Protein backbone atom coordinates (compact mmCIF):
# COMPACT_ATOMS: atom_id res chain seq x y z
CA UNK A 1 0.00 0.00 0.00
CA UNK A 2 1.94 2.98 -1.22
CA UNK A 3 1.72 6.51 0.08
CA UNK A 4 -1.00 8.60 1.61
CA UNK A 5 -2.87 9.34 -1.58
CA UNK A 6 -5.48 6.87 -2.84
CA UNK A 7 -4.40 4.92 -5.86
CA UNK A 8 -7.01 5.09 -8.56
CA UNK A 9 -6.93 2.50 -11.28
CA UNK A 10 -8.97 2.10 -14.39
CA UNK A 11 -8.92 -1.55 -15.23
CA UNK A 12 -12.59 -2.36 -15.23
CA UNK A 13 -13.86 0.37 -17.53
CA UNK A 14 -10.77 1.25 -19.46
CA UNK A 15 -9.93 -1.96 -21.20
CA UNK A 16 -11.81 -2.84 -24.33
CA UNK A 17 -14.00 -5.87 -24.81
CA UNK A 18 -12.11 -9.02 -25.63
CA UNK A 19 -11.81 -9.88 -29.27
CA UNK A 20 -13.32 -13.12 -30.42
CA UNK A 21 -9.84 -14.55 -30.91
CA UNK A 22 -8.64 -13.54 -27.47
CA UNK A 23 -11.75 -15.03 -25.91
CA UNK A 24 -11.15 -18.29 -27.76
CA UNK A 25 -7.56 -18.39 -26.56
CA UNK A 26 -8.72 -17.79 -23.01
CA UNK A 27 -11.42 -20.44 -23.16
CA UNK A 28 -9.02 -22.89 -24.78
CA UNK A 29 -6.71 -22.71 -21.80
CA UNK A 30 -6.57 -25.66 -19.46
CA UNK A 31 -9.33 -25.35 -16.84
CA UNK A 32 -7.04 -26.31 -13.99
CA UNK A 33 -4.53 -23.76 -15.15
CA UNK A 34 -7.19 -21.04 -15.21
CA UNK A 35 -8.24 -22.04 -11.73
CA UNK A 36 -4.67 -21.97 -10.50
CA UNK A 37 -4.25 -18.44 -11.81
CA UNK A 38 -7.42 -17.36 -10.02
CA UNK A 39 -6.35 -18.99 -6.78
CA UNK A 40 -3.01 -17.29 -7.01
CA UNK A 41 -4.63 -13.92 -7.57
CA UNK A 42 -6.50 -14.12 -4.27
CA UNK A 43 -9.60 -12.67 -5.93
CA UNK A 44 -12.53 -12.50 -3.54
CA UNK A 45 -16.14 -11.81 -4.35
CA UNK A 46 -16.93 -8.18 -5.14
CA UNK A 47 -20.57 -8.22 -4.07
CA UNK A 48 -19.92 -7.78 -0.38
CA UNK A 49 -19.57 -11.30 0.99
CA UNK A 50 -16.01 -11.71 -0.26
CA UNK A 51 -15.92 -15.44 -0.79
CA UNK A 52 -12.73 -16.60 -2.59
CA UNK A 53 -13.84 -16.78 -6.22
CA UNK A 54 -11.53 -19.59 -7.26
CA UNK A 55 -12.68 -21.78 -4.41
CA UNK A 56 -16.30 -21.36 -5.48
CA UNK A 57 -15.48 -22.24 -9.07
CA UNK A 58 -13.41 -25.20 -7.97
CA UNK A 59 -16.21 -26.67 -5.86
CA UNK A 60 -18.66 -26.38 -8.72
CA UNK A 61 -16.14 -27.89 -11.08
CA UNK A 62 -15.74 -30.87 -8.78
CA UNK A 63 -19.47 -31.38 -8.35
CA UNK A 64 -20.89 -34.30 -10.27
CA UNK A 65 -23.38 -33.85 -13.06
CA UNK A 66 -23.86 -32.45 -16.51
CA UNK A 67 -26.37 -29.78 -15.67
CA UNK A 68 -24.57 -26.84 -14.11
CA UNK A 69 -25.23 -23.12 -14.13
CA UNK A 70 -23.37 -19.84 -14.07
CA UNK A 71 -25.44 -17.04 -12.65
CA UNK A 72 -24.52 -13.38 -12.62
CA UNK A 73 -26.04 -11.67 -9.62
CA UNK A 74 -27.10 -8.30 -10.98
CA UNK A 75 -29.67 -7.70 -8.25
CA UNK A 76 -27.69 -4.74 -6.96
CA UNK A 77 -29.91 -3.35 -4.25
CA UNK A 78 -27.69 -2.41 -1.33
CA UNK A 79 -28.35 1.26 -0.54
CA UNK A 80 -25.52 3.34 -1.86
CA UNK A 81 -24.38 0.79 -4.42
CA UNK A 82 -24.64 1.58 -8.09
CA UNK A 83 -21.45 0.23 -9.60
CA UNK A 84 -22.97 -2.85 -11.20
CA UNK A 85 -25.37 -0.74 -13.19
CA UNK A 86 -22.45 1.13 -14.68
CA UNK A 87 -20.62 -2.09 -15.51
CA UNK A 88 -23.68 -3.45 -17.26
CA UNK A 89 -24.17 -0.20 -19.11
CA UNK A 90 -20.60 0.26 -20.24
CA UNK A 91 -18.83 -3.12 -20.41
CA UNK A 92 -21.53 -5.80 -20.47
CA UNK A 93 -19.37 -7.81 -22.85
CA UNK A 94 -16.87 -8.38 -20.05
CA UNK A 95 -19.56 -9.69 -17.78
CA UNK A 96 -20.66 -12.18 -20.38
CA UNK A 97 -17.10 -13.16 -21.19
CA UNK A 98 -16.49 -13.64 -17.48
CA UNK A 99 -19.49 -15.92 -17.35
CA UNK A 100 -18.13 -17.89 -20.30
CA UNK A 101 -14.85 -18.22 -18.46
CA UNK A 102 -16.63 -19.59 -15.44
CA UNK A 103 -18.64 -21.96 -17.64
CA UNK A 104 -15.39 -23.21 -19.12
CA UNK A 105 -13.97 -23.96 -15.70
CA UNK A 106 -16.99 -25.60 -14.11
CA UNK A 107 -18.48 -27.27 -17.18
CA UNK A 108 -21.72 -25.33 -17.50
CA UNK A 109 -23.66 -24.89 -20.72
CA UNK A 110 -26.23 -22.42 -19.49
CA UNK A 111 -26.00 -19.15 -17.66
CA UNK A 112 -28.32 -16.41 -16.52
CA UNK A 113 -28.07 -12.80 -15.56
CA UNK A 114 -30.52 -12.01 -12.77
CA UNK A 115 -31.17 -8.36 -13.49
CA UNK A 116 -33.03 -6.37 -10.86
CA UNK A 117 -36.36 -5.00 -12.04
CA UNK A 118 -35.25 -1.46 -11.25
CA UNK A 119 -32.67 -1.78 -14.05
CA UNK A 120 -35.16 -2.90 -16.67
CA UNK A 121 -34.19 0.08 -18.81
CA UNK A 122 -30.87 -1.72 -19.43
CA UNK A 123 -32.61 -4.70 -20.96
CA UNK A 124 -32.76 -3.60 -24.57
CA UNK A 125 -29.07 -2.80 -24.79
CA UNK A 126 -28.10 -5.88 -22.83
CA UNK A 127 -30.00 -8.07 -25.22
CA UNK A 128 -28.14 -6.50 -28.12
CA UNK A 129 -24.82 -7.08 -26.35
CA UNK A 130 -25.89 -10.63 -25.67
CA UNK A 131 -26.62 -11.25 -29.33
CA UNK A 132 -23.06 -10.25 -30.21
CA UNK A 133 -21.74 -12.42 -27.40
CA UNK A 134 -23.70 -15.46 -28.56
CA UNK A 135 -22.56 -14.91 -32.12
CA UNK A 136 -18.94 -14.79 -30.98
CA UNK A 137 -19.37 -18.00 -29.04
CA UNK A 138 -20.91 -19.70 -32.04
CA UNK A 139 -18.00 -18.54 -34.18
CA UNK A 140 -15.42 -19.92 -31.81
CA UNK A 141 -17.42 -23.05 -31.14
CA UNK A 142 -18.06 -22.70 -27.39
CA UNK A 143 -21.34 -24.16 -26.21
CA UNK A 144 -22.72 -21.72 -23.65
CA UNK A 145 -25.96 -19.76 -23.65
CA UNK A 146 -26.89 -16.89 -21.37
CA UNK A 147 -30.44 -15.76 -20.66
CA UNK A 148 -31.61 -12.71 -18.76
CA UNK A 149 -34.02 -13.12 -15.87
CA UNK A 150 -35.70 -9.98 -14.63
CA UNK A 151 -36.30 -9.37 -10.94
CA UNK A 152 -39.42 -7.66 -9.64
CA UNK A 153 -38.44 -5.46 -6.76
CA UNK A 154 -37.06 -7.49 -3.86
CA UNK A 155 -33.73 -6.68 -2.22
CA UNK A 156 -33.55 -10.10 -0.63
CA UNK A 157 -33.28 -11.70 -4.07
CA UNK A 158 -29.69 -10.56 -4.04
CA UNK A 159 -29.10 -13.35 -1.53
CA UNK A 160 -27.93 -16.29 -3.62
CA UNK A 161 -30.45 -18.93 -2.57
CA UNK A 162 -33.31 -16.42 -2.57
CA UNK A 163 -32.26 -15.58 -6.11
CA UNK A 164 -32.59 -19.23 -7.12
CA UNK A 165 -36.03 -19.40 -5.50
CA UNK A 166 -37.07 -16.34 -7.45
CA UNK A 167 -35.85 -17.81 -10.73
CA UNK A 168 -37.77 -20.96 -9.94
CA UNK A 169 -40.99 -18.99 -9.75
CA UNK A 170 -41.26 -18.72 -5.99
CA UNK A 171 -41.06 -16.12 -3.27
CA UNK A 172 -37.49 -15.03 -2.66
CA UNK A 173 -37.12 -16.84 0.67
CA UNK A 174 -33.51 -17.91 1.33
CA UNK A 175 -32.86 -21.59 1.75
CA UNK A 176 -31.05 -23.45 4.48
CA UNK A 177 -27.29 -23.62 3.93
CA UNK A 178 -25.71 -26.19 3.76
CA UNK A 179 -26.31 -27.44 1.10
CA UNK A 180 -24.37 -24.71 -0.71
CA UNK A 181 -25.08 -23.52 -4.27
CA UNK A 182 -21.95 -25.11 -5.71
CA UNK A 183 -23.59 -28.43 -4.91
CA UNK A 184 -27.32 -27.65 -4.99
CA UNK A 185 -28.09 -24.29 -6.50
CA UNK A 186 -30.46 -23.23 -9.24
CA UNK A 187 -32.87 -26.10 -9.89
CA UNK A 188 -30.88 -27.95 -7.23
CA UNK A 189 -27.95 -28.24 -9.62
CA UNK A 190 -24.31 -27.17 -9.09
CA UNK A 191 -24.26 -23.42 -9.59
CA UNK A 192 -21.70 -20.67 -9.41
CA UNK A 193 -23.35 -17.39 -8.58
CA UNK A 194 -21.09 -14.34 -8.77
CA UNK A 195 -21.55 -10.62 -8.52
CA UNK A 196 -21.29 -8.65 -11.76
CA UNK A 197 -17.97 -7.11 -10.77
CA UNK A 198 -16.52 -10.42 -9.65
CA UNK A 199 -17.03 -11.91 -13.09
CA UNK A 200 -15.35 -8.93 -14.73
CA UNK A 201 -12.49 -9.13 -12.23
CA UNK A 202 -12.02 -12.85 -12.79
CA UNK A 203 -11.77 -12.23 -16.50
CA UNK A 204 -9.32 -9.42 -15.81
CA UNK A 205 -7.09 -11.73 -13.80
CA UNK A 206 -6.74 -14.03 -16.79
CA UNK A 207 -5.93 -11.01 -18.97
CA UNK A 208 -3.33 -9.26 -16.83
CA UNK A 209 -2.17 -12.25 -14.82
CA UNK A 210 -2.31 -12.97 -11.10
CA UNK A 211 1.00 -11.30 -10.36
CA UNK A 212 -0.10 -8.00 -11.86
CA UNK A 213 -3.42 -8.22 -10.03
CA UNK A 214 -1.67 -8.81 -6.73
CA UNK A 215 0.44 -5.70 -7.17
CA UNK A 216 -2.67 -3.81 -6.13
CA UNK A 217 -4.24 -4.06 -2.71
CA UNK A 218 -2.93 -5.99 0.27
CA UNK A 219 -2.20 -9.61 1.08
CA UNK A 220 -5.74 -10.24 2.31
CA UNK A 221 -7.45 -7.95 -0.17
CA UNK A 222 -5.70 -8.22 -3.47
CA UNK A 223 -6.62 -6.16 -6.47
CA UNK A 224 -8.77 -3.15 -7.05
CA UNK A 225 -12.45 -2.62 -6.59
CA UNK A 226 -15.20 -0.30 -7.71
CA UNK A 227 -16.60 2.03 -5.10
CA UNK A 228 -19.92 3.81 -5.31
CA UNK A 229 -19.47 7.13 -3.54
CA UNK A 230 -22.46 9.25 -2.56
CA UNK A 231 -23.81 11.51 0.14
CA UNK A 232 -22.03 14.61 1.42
CA UNK A 233 -19.24 14.58 -1.13
CA UNK A 234 -18.19 17.03 -3.79
CA UNK A 235 -17.35 14.13 -6.08
CA UNK A 236 -20.10 11.51 -6.03
CA UNK A 237 -19.66 8.73 -8.56
CA UNK A 238 -17.96 5.45 -9.28
CA UNK A 239 -14.27 5.04 -8.66
CA UNK A 240 -11.99 2.09 -9.04
CA UNK A 241 -9.62 2.07 -6.10
CA UNK A 242 -7.05 -0.21 -4.61
CA UNK A 243 -8.33 -2.34 -1.76
CA UNK A 244 -6.77 -2.00 1.63
CA UNK A 245 -6.86 1.78 1.87
CA UNK A 246 -7.45 3.52 5.16
CA UNK A 247 -10.80 5.16 5.54
CA UNK A 248 -9.04 8.40 6.48
CA UNK A 249 -7.40 8.42 3.06
CA UNK A 250 -10.76 7.89 1.46
CA UNK A 251 -12.37 10.71 3.42
CA UNK A 252 -9.55 13.02 2.60
CA UNK A 253 -10.15 12.36 -1.07
CA UNK A 254 -13.94 12.30 -1.10
CA UNK A 255 -15.21 14.03 2.03
CA UNK A 256 -16.48 17.61 2.05
CA UNK A 257 -14.21 18.61 4.90
CA UNK A 258 -16.86 18.06 7.54
CA UNK A 259 -17.30 14.31 7.44
CA UNK A 260 -18.89 12.90 10.57
CA UNK A 261 -19.32 9.32 9.52
CA UNK A 262 -18.98 7.00 6.56
CA UNK A 263 -21.35 4.11 5.99
CA UNK A 264 -19.17 1.38 4.54
CA UNK A 265 -21.03 -1.44 2.83
CA UNK A 266 -24.50 0.02 2.65
CA UNK A 267 -27.27 -0.41 5.18
CA UNK A 268 -25.89 -3.88 5.85
CA UNK A 269 -22.47 -2.45 6.55
CA UNK A 270 -20.76 -0.47 9.28
CA UNK A 271 -21.11 3.17 10.12
CA UNK A 272 -17.60 4.33 10.94
CA UNK A 273 -17.36 7.49 13.03
CA UNK A 274 -14.73 10.14 12.48
CA UNK A 275 -12.64 9.04 15.43
CA UNK A 276 -12.13 5.66 13.82
CA UNK A 277 -11.32 6.76 10.27
CA UNK A 278 -7.62 6.30 10.72
CA UNK A 279 -7.76 2.81 12.18
CA UNK A 280 -10.30 1.46 9.69
CA UNK A 281 -9.08 -0.43 6.66
CA UNK A 282 -11.37 -0.87 3.69
CA UNK A 283 -10.83 -4.47 2.78
CA UNK A 284 -11.52 -8.00 3.87
CA UNK A 285 -9.10 -7.68 6.77
CA UNK A 286 -10.93 -4.61 8.03
CA UNK A 287 -14.39 -3.51 7.01
CA UNK A 288 -15.38 -5.38 3.86
CA UNK A 289 -17.78 -3.82 1.40
CA UNK A 290 -19.56 -4.40 -1.87
CA UNK A 291 -18.43 -0.89 -2.67
CA UNK A 292 -21.10 1.30 -1.17
CA UNK A 293 -19.63 4.34 0.57
CA UNK A 294 -22.14 6.84 1.89
CA UNK A 295 -20.65 9.96 3.44
CA UNK A 296 -22.41 11.92 6.17
CA UNK A 297 -21.33 15.35 7.37
CA UNK A 298 -22.04 16.94 10.72
CA UNK A 299 -25.39 18.34 9.55
CA UNK A 300 -26.86 14.87 9.31
CA UNK A 301 -28.86 13.17 12.02
CA UNK A 302 -27.57 9.66 12.58
CA UNK A 303 -30.95 8.89 14.06
CA UNK A 304 -32.51 9.56 10.68
CA UNK A 305 -29.82 7.43 9.08
CA UNK A 306 -30.45 4.36 11.24
CA UNK A 307 -34.19 4.85 10.96
CA UNK A 308 -33.86 4.87 7.20
CA UNK A 309 -31.91 1.60 7.28
CA UNK A 310 -34.33 -0.09 9.68
CA UNK A 311 -37.30 0.98 7.59
CA UNK A 312 -35.53 -0.53 4.61
CA UNK A 313 -34.78 -3.82 6.35
CA UNK A 314 -38.19 -4.30 7.85
CA UNK A 315 -39.72 -3.82 4.41
CA UNK A 316 -37.27 -5.97 2.50
CA UNK A 317 -36.96 -8.82 4.96
CA UNK A 318 -38.43 -11.92 3.35
CA UNK A 319 -40.35 -12.44 6.59
CA UNK A 320 -39.53 -16.08 6.90
CA UNK A 321 -37.48 -16.29 10.06
CA UNK A 322 -38.45 -14.97 13.47
CA UNK A 323 -35.36 -12.95 14.49
CA UNK A 324 -35.28 -10.91 11.28
CA UNK A 325 -38.99 -10.50 10.63
CA UNK A 326 -39.87 -9.48 14.16
CA UNK A 327 -36.50 -8.06 15.13
CA UNK A 328 -36.50 -5.45 12.37
CA UNK A 329 -39.98 -4.29 13.35
CA UNK A 330 -38.96 -4.12 17.00
CA UNK A 331 -35.91 -2.02 16.22
CA UNK A 332 -37.80 0.38 14.02
CA UNK A 333 -40.43 1.00 16.67
CA UNK A 334 -37.87 0.88 19.43
CA UNK A 335 -35.72 3.75 18.22
CA UNK A 336 -38.79 5.94 17.89
CA UNK A 337 -39.93 4.97 21.36
CA UNK A 338 -36.57 5.95 22.85
CA UNK A 339 -36.51 9.20 20.89
CA UNK A 340 -39.98 10.13 22.07
CA UNK A 341 -39.08 9.28 25.64
CA UNK A 342 -41.58 6.42 25.80
CA UNK A 343 -38.76 4.03 26.50
CA UNK A 344 -35.81 4.61 28.74
CA UNK A 345 -32.42 5.19 27.02
CA UNK A 346 -31.37 1.87 28.56
CA UNK A 347 -33.69 0.27 26.04
CA UNK A 348 -30.98 0.96 23.49
CA UNK A 349 -28.91 -1.69 25.21
CA UNK A 350 -31.81 -4.12 25.01
CA UNK A 351 -31.98 -3.39 21.30
CA UNK A 352 -28.26 -3.94 20.94
CA UNK A 353 -28.74 -7.32 22.59
CA UNK A 354 -31.56 -8.03 20.15
CA UNK A 355 -29.36 -7.26 17.17
CA UNK A 356 -26.81 -9.71 18.54
CA UNK A 357 -29.49 -12.38 18.65
CA UNK A 358 -30.42 -11.46 15.10
CA UNK A 359 -26.81 -11.74 14.09
CA UNK A 360 -26.46 -15.20 15.56
CA UNK A 361 -29.78 -16.74 14.68
CA UNK A 362 -31.09 -15.20 11.46
CA UNK A 363 -31.38 -17.54 8.54
CA UNK A 364 -29.53 -15.32 6.08
CA UNK A 365 -27.24 -12.35 5.74
CA UNK A 366 -29.99 -9.74 5.84
CA UNK A 367 -31.01 -10.43 9.43
CA UNK A 368 -27.43 -11.16 10.38
CA UNK A 369 -26.21 -7.77 9.10
CA UNK A 370 -28.65 -5.47 10.85
CA UNK A 371 -26.41 -5.54 13.91
CA UNK A 372 -23.59 -3.96 11.92
CA UNK A 373 -25.15 -0.58 11.29
CA UNK A 374 -27.29 -0.60 14.40
CA UNK A 375 -24.43 -1.28 16.75
CA UNK A 376 -22.04 1.11 15.06
CA UNK A 377 -24.56 3.95 15.14
CA UNK A 378 -26.06 3.21 18.56
CA UNK A 379 -22.63 2.96 20.13
CA UNK A 380 -20.93 5.89 18.39
CA UNK A 381 -23.83 8.29 18.20
CA UNK A 382 -25.80 7.32 21.24
CA UNK A 383 -26.83 10.88 22.12
CA UNK A 384 -28.44 11.31 18.72
CA UNK A 385 -30.64 8.29 19.44
CA UNK A 386 -31.96 9.85 22.61
CA UNK A 387 -32.18 13.62 22.16
Amino acid at each position, binding site marked *: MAGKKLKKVDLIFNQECLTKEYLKRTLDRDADELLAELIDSGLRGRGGAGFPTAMKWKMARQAAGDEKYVICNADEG*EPGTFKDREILEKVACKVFDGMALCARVIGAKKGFVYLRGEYKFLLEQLEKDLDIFHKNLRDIGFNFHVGIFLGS*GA*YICGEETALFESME*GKRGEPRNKPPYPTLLGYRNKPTVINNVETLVSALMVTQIGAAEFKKLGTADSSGSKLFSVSGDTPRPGIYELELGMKLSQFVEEFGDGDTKAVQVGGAAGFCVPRKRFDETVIGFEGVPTGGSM*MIFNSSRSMF*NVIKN*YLDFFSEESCGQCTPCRVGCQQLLLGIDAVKRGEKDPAYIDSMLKLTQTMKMTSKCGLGQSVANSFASIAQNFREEMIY
Partner: protein
Amino acid sequence: MENIKEIVDNLSEKHGQSPESLLPILQGIVNKRHYISEDAIREVARVLNISTAKVFGTASFYSFLDIKPRGKYVIRLCKTITCNMHGSHMIRSTIENMLKIKLGDTTLNKKFTLLETNCLGWCHKGPAMLVNDKSYTELTPEKIRAILTAYLNDEIEE
Protein backbone atom coordinates in the same frame (compact mmCIF):
# COMPACT_ATOMS: atom_id res chain seq x y z
CA MET B 1 -58.46 -4.79 -26.66
CA GLU B 2 -57.15 -8.11 -25.43
CA ASN B 3 -58.97 -9.68 -22.54
CA ILE B 4 -57.01 -11.04 -19.64
CA LYS B 5 -57.30 -14.64 -20.79
CA GLU B 6 -55.76 -13.75 -24.14
CA ILE B 7 -52.99 -11.80 -22.45
CA VAL B 8 -52.12 -14.72 -20.19
CA ASP B 9 -52.35 -17.26 -22.97
CA ASN B 10 -50.00 -15.20 -25.13
CA LEU B 11 -47.59 -14.76 -22.26
CA SER B 12 -47.53 -18.46 -21.50
CA GLU B 13 -46.85 -19.17 -25.16
CA LYS B 14 -43.89 -16.84 -24.97
CA HIS B 15 -42.51 -17.88 -21.58
CA GLY B 16 -43.68 -21.46 -21.30
CA GLN B 17 -45.66 -23.22 -18.61
CA SER B 18 -42.95 -24.36 -16.25
CA PRO B 19 -42.42 -23.06 -12.71
CA GLU B 20 -39.74 -20.70 -14.09
CA SER B 21 -42.38 -19.08 -16.26
CA LEU B 22 -44.36 -17.63 -13.37
CA LEU B 23 -42.40 -14.45 -12.78
CA PRO B 24 -41.98 -13.52 -16.46
CA ILE B 25 -45.71 -14.06 -16.99
CA LEU B 26 -46.64 -11.92 -14.00
CA GLN B 27 -44.24 -9.22 -15.20
CA GLY B 28 -45.90 -9.37 -18.62
CA ILE B 29 -49.31 -8.84 -17.05
CA VAL B 30 -48.07 -5.80 -15.13
CA ASN B 31 -46.63 -4.46 -18.37
CA LYS B 32 -50.00 -4.57 -20.07
CA ARG B 33 -52.45 -3.93 -17.28
CA HIS B 34 -50.33 -2.10 -14.68
CA TYR B 35 -51.33 -4.56 -12.00
CA ILE B 36 -52.35 -8.17 -11.47
CA SER B 37 -56.07 -8.57 -10.90
CA GLU B 38 -57.88 -11.48 -9.28
CA ASP B 39 -58.94 -12.66 -12.69
CA ALA B 40 -55.37 -12.47 -13.92
CA ILE B 41 -54.26 -14.59 -11.00
CA ARG B 42 -56.92 -17.17 -11.81
CA GLU B 43 -55.83 -17.28 -15.44
CA VAL B 44 -52.19 -17.74 -14.49
CA ALA B 45 -53.14 -20.50 -12.07
CA ARG B 46 -55.13 -22.19 -14.79
CA VAL B 47 -52.41 -21.97 -17.39
CA LEU B 48 -49.60 -23.13 -15.07
CA ASN B 49 -51.83 -25.58 -13.22
CA ILE B 50 -50.89 -24.28 -9.78
CA SER B 51 -53.11 -22.96 -7.02
CA THR B 52 -54.35 -19.38 -6.99
CA ALA B 53 -52.96 -19.07 -3.47
CA LYS B 54 -49.49 -19.83 -4.77
CA VAL B 55 -49.75 -17.26 -7.57
CA PHE B 56 -51.08 -14.69 -5.13
CA GLY B 57 -48.46 -15.51 -2.52
CA THR B 58 -45.65 -15.16 -5.04
CA ALA B 59 -46.98 -11.99 -6.69
CA SER B 60 -47.58 -10.27 -3.35
CA PHE B 61 -43.94 -10.85 -2.38
CA TYR B 62 -42.49 -8.65 -5.12
CA SER B 63 -42.89 -4.88 -4.86
CA PHE B 64 -43.12 -4.43 -8.61
CA LEU B 65 -45.80 -7.07 -9.09
CA ASP B 66 -48.64 -4.84 -8.01
CA ILE B 67 -51.74 -6.65 -6.89
CA LYS B 68 -53.57 -3.42 -6.21
CA PRO B 69 -54.85 -1.41 -9.15
CA ARG B 70 -52.34 1.21 -10.30
CA GLY B 71 -52.48 4.10 -12.71
CA LYS B 72 -51.08 4.14 -16.20
CA TYR B 73 -47.85 5.68 -14.94
CA VAL B 74 -46.48 4.38 -11.69
CA ILE B 75 -44.07 6.80 -10.05
CA ARG B 76 -41.62 5.16 -7.69
CA LEU B 77 -39.67 7.71 -5.69
CA CYS B 78 -36.50 6.52 -4.01
CA LYS B 79 -36.60 6.88 -0.24
CA THR B 80 -33.03 5.86 0.58
CA ILE B 81 -31.06 8.13 2.89
CA THR B 82 -28.79 9.52 0.19
CA CYS B 83 -31.73 10.62 -1.95
CA ASN B 84 -33.22 12.10 1.22
CA MET B 85 -30.08 14.06 1.76
CA HIS B 86 -30.48 15.53 -1.70
CA GLY B 87 -34.05 16.64 -1.19
CA SER B 88 -36.39 13.77 -2.05
CA HIS B 89 -38.90 15.19 0.44
CA MET B 90 -39.28 18.27 -1.67
CA ILE B 91 -39.71 16.18 -4.78
CA ARG B 92 -42.38 14.22 -3.02
CA SER B 93 -44.33 17.33 -2.03
CA THR B 94 -43.99 18.72 -5.53
CA ILE B 95 -45.51 15.60 -7.00
CA GLU B 96 -48.20 15.40 -4.32
CA ASN B 97 -49.18 19.01 -4.91
CA MET B 98 -49.09 18.76 -8.65
CA LEU B 99 -51.11 15.58 -8.93
CA LYS B 100 -53.25 16.23 -5.86
CA ILE B 101 -52.59 12.80 -4.41
CA LYS B 102 -50.72 11.43 -1.43
CA LEU B 103 -48.22 8.59 -1.32
CA GLY B 104 -49.92 5.29 -2.20
CA ASP B 105 -52.76 6.94 -4.09
CA THR B 106 -53.79 6.97 -7.72
CA THR B 107 -55.13 10.06 -9.46
CA LEU B 108 -58.84 10.07 -10.20
CA ASN B 109 -58.22 9.90 -13.92
CA LYS B 110 -56.15 6.78 -13.19
CA LYS B 111 -53.14 8.29 -14.90
CA PHE B 112 -50.62 8.39 -12.05
CA THR B 113 -49.86 6.38 -8.94
CA LEU B 114 -47.31 7.68 -6.44
CA LEU B 115 -45.27 5.12 -4.51
CA GLU B 116 -42.03 4.99 -2.61
CA THR B 117 -39.34 2.49 -3.36
CA ASN B 118 -35.97 1.43 -2.03
CA CYS B 119 -32.54 2.21 -3.47
CA LEU B 120 -32.74 2.58 -7.23
CA GLY B 121 -28.99 2.66 -7.74
CA TRP B 122 -28.62 6.37 -8.57
CA CYS B 123 -27.28 7.51 -5.22
CA HIS B 124 -24.71 9.85 -6.77
CA LYS B 125 -27.45 11.56 -8.77
CA GLY B 126 -30.28 11.75 -6.31
CA PRO B 127 -33.13 12.36 -5.89
CA ALA B 128 -34.13 9.63 -8.30
CA MET B 129 -37.37 8.04 -9.37
CA LEU B 130 -38.78 5.52 -11.79
CA VAL B 131 -41.84 6.17 -13.87
CA ASN B 132 -42.84 2.70 -14.94
CA ASP B 133 -39.53 1.38 -16.28
CA LYS B 134 -37.82 4.69 -17.03
CA SER B 135 -35.44 6.24 -14.54
CA TYR B 136 -35.13 9.94 -13.83
CA THR B 137 -32.30 11.38 -11.76
CA GLU B 138 -31.06 14.66 -10.33
CA LEU B 139 -34.64 15.69 -9.85
CA THR B 140 -35.70 19.20 -9.04
CA PRO B 141 -39.21 20.61 -8.67
CA GLU B 142 -38.87 22.15 -12.12
CA LYS B 143 -37.80 18.90 -13.70
CA ILE B 144 -40.68 17.11 -12.01
CA ARG B 145 -43.15 19.55 -13.43
CA ALA B 146 -41.72 19.08 -16.90
CA ILE B 147 -41.60 15.30 -16.65
CA LEU B 148 -45.08 14.89 -15.26
CA THR B 149 -46.52 17.28 -17.80
CA ALA B 150 -44.99 15.23 -20.57
CA TYR B 151 -46.58 12.09 -19.12
CA LEU B 152 -49.85 13.85 -18.60
CA ASN B 153 -49.92 14.54 -22.32
CA ASP B 154 -48.86 10.96 -23.02
CA GLU B 155 -45.80 12.28 -24.80
CA ILE B 156 -43.40 9.69 -23.41
CA GLU B 157 -42.83 6.51 -25.39
CA GLU B 158 -42.71 3.44 -23.21
